[in-house]
């Protein structure tokens, strides 16, 4: 089932909601059992998250078993601390570090896409790790205090960067509509609209027709100067491709007019701009795009675009923690659909293959 697209649980796959639920139960139980210190509550929360994630990963028995073992290890450390084991800090620190590193490895291997539950869990673990690294009460070890503080900052920055990068490159295991949309994935800030997995012959034909009509419609804009003359302006320069948006068309035009799409996408090569395709956009935020080719042509929208209030320009993308630069606000885009008329390896509706686009740009 697709994750919710709005509200408190936005972006959380159904399979991960169990993690939040068990964490909440563990926190309440811990409170009733008089666990009141921050480290104890944080360890309980992360143990609950891992235990609650196991059932949602039943199709991957090794991963599910690791989740259960990890939760058990956290609870064991907590239990040993409560019976007076002196080395519990060392054990908790090692366990937290290993868990954070394991998650980063899973992200790097693209086995899992970062989601809000994973992000929240890493923040919990980083805070707990920061606490156990600090010297004991009453200690005068200033150097250790400074080193622990520095390590907390560096570890948080590295983990946050990995989450950001992981969200940008996506993953094969995405728990959502991406499971049945070929060469498409969501990720931080890019949310795919749900579409039925089964594609009818009529939908296939409609998708093919849209590609052909788009190719014919935007042919005059092979020369970027004509696009500029028609009112298209470069925006969103992230990655190897540059979007040229015509704001008048985006706001008031027909959303699926192949001769006047909301945006054109170019690769900046050494020999000038090369037209890669078009981007269609719905005129209003929250208005779902019309179904054309089902799972072949899923619409998407972005939730991580930062707009600077002074000057109204794109000032960046919000971090996995939802923050934008000062003076900027995070907005949600209208539904969008890219159609690649250039030979994108992921197909005319798939994600733009970054490596291919970079090779093209440097050619």
């Amino acid at each position, binding site marked *: 089932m697709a994750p919710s697209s709005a509200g408190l649980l936005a972006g959380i796959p159904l399979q991960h909601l169990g993690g939040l639920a068990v964490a909440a139960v563990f926190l309440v139980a811990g409170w009733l059992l008089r666990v009141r210190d921050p480290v104890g509550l944080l360890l309980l929360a992360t143990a609950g998250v891992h235990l609650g994630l196991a059932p949602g990963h039943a199709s991957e028995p090794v991963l599910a078993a690791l989740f259960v073992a990890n939760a058990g290890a956290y609870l064991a450390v907590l239990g040993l601390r409560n019976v007076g084991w002196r080395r519990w800090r060392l054990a908790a620190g090692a366990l937290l570090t290993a868990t954070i590193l394991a998650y980063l490895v899973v992200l790097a291997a693209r086995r899992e896409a970062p989601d809000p539950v994973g992000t929240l869990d890493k923040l919990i673990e980083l805070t707990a790790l920061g606490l156990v690294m600090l010297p004991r*009460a009453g200690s005068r070890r200033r150097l250790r205090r400074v080193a622990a503080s520095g390590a907390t900052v560096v570890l948080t920055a590295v983990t946050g960067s990995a989450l950001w990068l992981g969200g940008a490159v996506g993953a094969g295991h995405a728990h959502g509509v991406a499971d049945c949309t070929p060469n498409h994935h969501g990720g931080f800030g890019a949310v795919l609209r749900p579409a039925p997995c089964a594609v009818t012959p009529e939908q296939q034909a409609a998708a093919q027709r849209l590609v052909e009509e788009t190719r014919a419609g935007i042919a005059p804009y092979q020369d970027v100067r004509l696009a500029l003359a028609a009112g298209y302006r470069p925006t969103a320069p992230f990655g190897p491709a540059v979007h040229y948006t015509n704001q008048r068309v985006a706001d008031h035009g027909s959303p699926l007019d192949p001769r006047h799409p909301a945006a054109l996408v170019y690769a900046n090569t050494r020999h000038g701009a090369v037209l890669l395709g078009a981007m269609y956009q719905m005129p209003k935020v929250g208005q779902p795009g019309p179904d054309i080719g089902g799972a072949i042509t899923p619409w998407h929208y972005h939730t991580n675009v930062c707009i600077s209030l002074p000057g109204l320009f794109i000032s960046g993308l919000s971090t996995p923690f939802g923050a934008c630069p000062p003076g900027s606000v995070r907005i949600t885009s209208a539904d969008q659909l890219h159609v690649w008329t250039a030979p994108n390896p992921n197909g005319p509706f798939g994600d733009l293959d970054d490596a291919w686009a970079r090779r093209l740009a440097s050619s």
Partner: protein
Amino acid sequence: VSALRHVLLLVQAATAGLVALGPLLLALAERSPAALLLALVTGALACVPLAVAGGLAAGRGWARTLGFWYELILLLSGVANLVVLSNGDLVSLLCTVGLPLGLLWMLLHEPHKELTADSQELPRWRLEAGDRGGRRRTDPGG
């Protein structure tokens, strides 16, 4: 829980530092001085929680004031994002509203005391002695 406050300030500084990457990439891609300036300002602001954490650990009175105003601005901005723009997803809510709110509460209610990871493990007389010492250093009027 002054250790918790300390660690949360460090985590906040690191996450705020990441924000600077967005305008920095934009500045490099577009060669835009405005984006570069924004990246520098964002990076500088990310250092504020670090300064507050360091200042509080060293018992400096200005750190509490600086932290108070910083967290208040973050909280107002987070609430505006939540109410006006409906950016109310779980992580965003916790990081842009919950974290500043929690830190504000800690800054307002928590007396200065020695930085400890588990102050509840200290005997009560040690905590009270720590509190008095902290207040003496940071609050001349007290």
